[in-house]
């Protein structure tokens, strides 16, 4: 019984911990990336699993891309729920007896994200950024690769 309780509490604590972990990459995390890093090191720095991976070959050279959600802004979202007062027996009334408010406002901060791509050449980080950054890259090799790269990017439905 006691063992079951420990397992239950540990599972709950782990779930709570995971739900509190950030699931987006920030600009300041991107700053820690360096050319030549391997995928495992990149994932460690970004502290988020990639949302997807793809591979392709150009002129015999193996490339792979991983995409991550990059935090580009934040916004506050408000929702309202009725301020019901439940009575014994299950019936409910508007909460005149509580604080007089008919609706309760719930507010949360939501991250706005854009896809950020890490491009690996032979398993090593070659370039990273949002799609637009690939498109305007000063790097001649990236410019030459773009037509192929753009075939593999994920276009967001929204």
């Amino acid at each position, binding site marked *: 019984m006691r063992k079951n309780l420990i397992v239950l509490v540990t599972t709950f604590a782990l779930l709570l911990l995971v739900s509190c972990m950030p699931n987006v990459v*920030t*600009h300041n995390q*991107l*700053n820690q*990336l*360096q050319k030549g890093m391997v995928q495992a090191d990149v994932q460690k720095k970004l502290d988020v699993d990639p949302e997807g991976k793809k591979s392709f070959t150009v002129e015999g050279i193996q490339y792979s891309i991983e995409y991550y959600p990059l935090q580009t802004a*934040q*916004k506050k979202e408000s929702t309202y729920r009725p301020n019901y007062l439940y009575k014994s027996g299950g019936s409910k009334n508007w909460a005149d007896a509580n604080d007089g408010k008919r609706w309760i406002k719930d507010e949360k901060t939501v991250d706005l994200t854009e896809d950020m791509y890490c491009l690996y050449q032979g398993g090593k980080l070659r370039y990273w*950024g949002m799609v637009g950054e690939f498109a305007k890259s*000063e790097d001649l090799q990236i410019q030459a690769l773009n037509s192929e790269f753009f075939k593999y990017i994920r276009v967001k439905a929204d």
Partner: protein
Amino acid sequence: MKYLLLLTITLFTVSCSTFSYIEVNKLRKGMKVEEVNSFVAISPKKSFEISLPSDASKKFSVREYFLTLGTIYADFYMVFQDDKLIYWGFPYEFNRFPDPMINEIGATAAAEAQK
């Protein structure tokens, strides 16, 4: 009374000042620090000099800002050589640039900024 009004206006202006893409889009290569200051209303978070480990004779002046992206902030560098703006961007933009000198400036500036 006049001074109080002036102080209020100054405090209001300073408190509303940010560094955002509006200012970033005005940056041009070759600008002097004075020119940049004319439209960037806030002071840099840090300002320091660096020289490159590979060539100590190359000296640069770095200004580190907080760039406002809506309600979030990100580090942003401006690098001057002989009082002329040579490159600017997020530190990661320095790291991925094709010119190794820009990579080295970014790495050296990041190390100096952390001191």
